[in-house]
Structures are given as structure tokens and as C-alpha cells.
């Protein structure tokens, strides 16, 4: 399988604190196409920092992040904006959707920034909203959707532009059990059908139980990297 992301000796130290914080320590990992990976670990273990660094939102202090044979750690900010737009999908825990846009517009948002054709964009956005079971909510704004529905729209948006991989930062943290399972079913199905690499940071056991690969971080370093056979 093709390698989507490769990290080599990744370290991140925050020095703007009273005592330097080593959020990541020498993390070397590879993620293959179509993987469904959960990054787990206690609070402060470096999960979110790891996602930020491989998502190009934060720069590593040391090491490399190679995506599509390009080391994004050396990219300028303007290049990173474009890179994220073209290659990475994001699902966040909260503040996920743009409140002033409808579900349809939210899903189209990245494609719109990518300057895709209107026809193509609308077709894909409708298709994605149908896939997440929200084809009847096209013109509804986020405030009128439940938390679970909002996360489903966020998943649809992250996948609509067909990125190389999707990073999800604790996407189920604010959801009730039913909504969380529903979201995970959808993500697992889309992972299979669209062959998109999904990487979650989570400490939600419901997510961990669905992941085919579970990487445990402790104090910023990889403690365990386990693979599981799951449907």
C-alpha cells in the first residue's frame, strides 16, 4: 500500500512556557493509504500536537513530515495553506462548521476555495450529504442541526474534496453514544468506500474499538503501535 504520511524523528518543544514542554519526542511513523488509525493517550500526551504537526498547522522543532514526497516541515506558511487545502481534510471537536453557511455551503466550502466548478461542487456536496444521511438538511444552518448532525456535515466537508487523508481531533468527544456510533459508522464506511486515510486523536473507547490501528502516545513519544483486523 502507498505511504500517505511519513514522519521521521518528529519533535516539538514549546519554549514559551515557564518550563520547556516537550510535546513530541522523536516520533517516527508511517501511515498507509486507507488506514483507519486512532492516536490515543492521556491528556497532554501529544495527540493534538501530533495532528497539528502532520496537518501543517504547527511546525515541528525537529524532524520531517513527508506527504506525497514533500517535506511540509520546510514549507512556508503560504505554501502550507495551499497544501492543506488540496491534500488534508479536518474534522475538529468543536467550532467545526461555519455558522453563517448552510450545510450544503459548508460541505462545498473547501471545493469553493479550490475553485472547483459550481456544477461539480454541488453534485459532490449533495452526494456527500446523502452519504452522511443529511440529504434533507441541505439549506439548514449549523445552529439548527444537532451536535451529531453537525459532525456529520463536518465529515462530509472533510471528505468532499477527496483529500489524501483526514485528520479528526476528538470528533466524538461532544456526542452522545448514539450520535457517536452513527458518526463512526459513516466514517468507517467512507474510509472503505472512498479509500481515504483517517487519523483520529481520541480517548473515546468507542473510536478506539473501531480503529484498525491504534498508536498510543505517552509523554510525546510512541509507546505502542498496534494493528487490528476489523471490518
Amino acid at each position, binding site marked *: 500500500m502507498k505511504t500517505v504520511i511519513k514522519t521521521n524523528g518528529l519533535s516539538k518543544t514549546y519554549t514559551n512556557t515557564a518550563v520547556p514542554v516537550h510535546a513530541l519526542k522523536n516520533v517516527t511513523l508511517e501511515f498507509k493509504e486507507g488506514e483507519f488509525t486512532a492516536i490515543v493517550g492521556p491528556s497532554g500526551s501529544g495527540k493534538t500536537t501530533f495532528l*497539528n504537526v502532520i496537518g501543517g498547522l*504547527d511546525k515541528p522543532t525537529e524532524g520531517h513530515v513527508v506527504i506525497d514526497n514533500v517535506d511540509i516541515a520546510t514549507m512556508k506558511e503560504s505554501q502550507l*495553506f495551499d497544501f*492543506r487545502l488540496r491534500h488534508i481534510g479536518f474534522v*475538529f471537536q468543536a*467550532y467545526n462548521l461555519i455558522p*453563517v453557511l448552510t450545510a450544503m455551503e459548508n460541505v462545498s466550502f473547501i471545493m469553493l476555495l479550490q475553485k472547483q466548478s459550481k456544477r461539480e461542487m454541488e453534485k459532490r456536496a449533495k452526494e456527500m450529504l446523502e452519504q452522511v444521511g443529511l440529504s434533507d438538511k441541505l439549506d439548514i444552518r449549523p445552529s439548527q442541526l444537532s451536535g451529531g448532525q453537525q459532525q456529520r456535515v463536518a465529515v462530509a466537508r472533510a471528505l468532499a474534496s477527496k483529500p489524501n487523508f483526514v485528520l479528526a481531533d476528538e470528533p466524538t468527544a461532544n456526542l452522545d453514544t448514539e450520535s457517536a456510533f452513527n458518526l463512526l459508522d459513516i466514517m468507517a464506511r467512507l474510509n472503505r468506500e472512498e479509500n481515504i486515510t483517517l487519523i483520529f486523536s481520541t480517548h473515546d473507547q468507542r473510536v478506539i474499538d473501531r480503529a484498525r490501528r491504534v498508536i498510543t502516545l505517552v509523554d510525546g513519544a510512541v509507546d505502542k503501535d498496534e494493528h487490528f483486523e476489523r471490518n
Partner: protein
Amino acid sequence: MNLIIKMAWRNLWRNRRRSLITMSSVLFAVLLAIFFYSMEKGSYERMIDNMVRYSTGYIQIQDVLFEDEPSMDHSMLVDEHINGILEELDDRIDFSVPRINHFVLVASDRITRSAMLMGIDSAAEARLNDVSDRITAGSFIEDNDKDIVVAQGLAEVLKVVTGDTLVLISQGYQGVSAAGLYRIKGIVDLHIPEMNNSTIYMALPEAQWFYNAQDRLTSLVIMPENPQHTRQLAGDISERIDTEWYRILTYEEMLEDLLALMQFDIAGTMVLLAILYIVIAFGLFGTMLTMLLERKKEFAMLMALGMKRAQLAIICFIEAIIISLTGAFAGILVAIPFVVYFYHHPVQLSGDFADAMTGYGFEPILPLSPDPVVFVSQAMVVLIISIIIGMYPVYSVFRLDMVKARQK
């Protein structure tokens, strides 16, 4: 671009009440500013208009020494040289008004005052102003009259009425004593308090006889076809006239002190308006600041998704511009009917305030100016303020730390 405008527009209405309050504050500031500025401009425009029509005209031809040493010895003859120039520029000159103006000592039976005696050609003067229609008692002088018309303020000071006789004493041409007894034919109420307290009208031939200055004038008032071309016409007359003997003055030169006072007064009003706008600017800035604080996480999310800082900055900037310009245009729209109404129906002041205005030499009315400059200038001020304030969110967006903002 559609997405950016759509997002900016919808963002404005996310917190409808806050946006409306901010817009309203801009509206009231613009309304007040227009009202103040229009009132001041209107008063001065009216004063200048009155001074031009009743006193100076737009351009005057004088003897070269008269402005600095106003005596009858510095009066002039309107000879062929001047008439030739007037004929040459006839298509740009509406009409000319001959005058002989000089100070006189005027005495009733018990009171003596100094006054300005204006020897006028009543037909020509009627084209310049409506002085003959402003008679409050008696009637206006005609060209062959030997009587005088006295301004109302002066008549009150001298305690005289129509039919009374006044003694006029002055210095005539070439040192001749000018003195005479004149019957008051009419009392006239002039617009300008300063003139109303000091003017006496006499027919031009009689005034020339009084000053022993036959055929002589102290000034020839020139009214241009288009008053906006006053300076250009004055320049063209200057080029042609013998400047060794004659001098051309525009109303701006003749009313230099008044215009300087106006500028000083306008500067005072500008300070007041600046304070008003500073208050509004802080209100607008507060709104922007709150909006930024509320939306930092959202901005970080948008940037993470791939929206460029510049695109986000444009959204914030458009929001600032829309909110302030909507308020400004609403203010202008609300102000227009007020200004137009008070332009046609100026507020007539009365009581102490009117006395105070008169004391300062102002006509005791408050006319508003409907000059588009009044409205455009306020819109421009608000636009500049909103551009300056709009730069803050732009600055903040460019400095935003995506990771920190998402953690907050």
C-alpha cells in the same frame, strides 16, 4: 469573491442587535455632523452672499490707492479704457454697478454717528440685490432724488423716522468740505447687522454732487455671468487694465477678515466633529474587538481548512466597511429632508440668542446648506474612520496563531 462577500454579509447579521446598535451610532453621529456642518456652512454662505449682494459684489474695480486709503481723492473716472475692457469681456460679465461709497458723520438733532454713505444707481443696484424691496417705512430713492434712505439700525440709533432731516458731513474730492441737510425718504431693513447699523443710501448723482466728485466713482462692481469664474474673470480684467491706476479686487480679498474668521470658526466646529467621530470610532472599534474575540476559534478553523489569511482579512474588513457605511448612508438619508426643509425654512432666532448673533454681526437666522459637499465630506470621514478601524481585524488576522486560537 462571492463567498467572501456572502460570509461578510451574513456575519454582520449573526449578532443582529449589536450590528444595528453600531450602525445606529454611526447614523446619529453622521446626522449630527451633517446638521452642525450644514448649519455653519449655511450661515457663512448666506453671510457671504449677503455681503456680496449688498456690499462688495464679486469683483470691484477701484483706484489703485482706494483700498488702502479710502478717500475721495482716490476715487476714479470710468473712462474709455475701462469701458473698452468691459466691452471686450462683455460675454462673461452679467452687469456692472457704479458706486460712490465713503464714510460720513451723520447727526440728528441730538445724536451723531459715523456711517457709510452709498451713492447708488438704483436701477443697477436693483439687479444686484433687493434693497429697494426691503423698505420698512417710506419709499426707496430714485436716480433724481435729493433725499436719502437710512438703514433701520442706524435710524433707531439716531432716533429718526421718515420725513426727518439729517446732517451729513464728510470730506469731498480734492479737500472740499462735503456737508448737507438731507430728508429721510425711507427706512430700509438690511440683512447684515453691521450694514444695518451704519448705511445711508443716496442717489449716485446727488452723492457725486455732495462729494464734489462729478462723474467719479469709488468702485465699479462687476458681476460675472458665472460667479464660480470670479477669480478667472478678475485675472483677465487685471491683465487688460492699467494697473498703475486701477486695482481689481475679488470678494475674497475684500472679505478677507470675514473669510479668515469663518475658517477659524469652521476649524472650531471641526474639532467638535472630530470629538464626535472619535467617540463613534471607539464604539466601532469595540464592536470589532468583541467580534474578533468571539471568532478567534472560528478563524483558526477556517485557516486550518485552507482559507488564506488575506481572504479572512478581507471578510473582516468588508464587515467593518459595511457596518459603518450603512450607518453613514442611513444618516445622510435621514439628514437630507431635514437639511432641505431648513434650507427653505431657516430657523428664525429670537430673544437673547438673536441679540447675541446680531452682536457678533450675524443675521439672527439659522439657514442650512444643502451643498453636496456637506454630505459627501461626512461620508468620506466615516469611510476613512472605518478603513482605519477595519485595519485592526486585518492586522489581528495576520497575527493570529492558529494553534493557540484553536486551544482557547
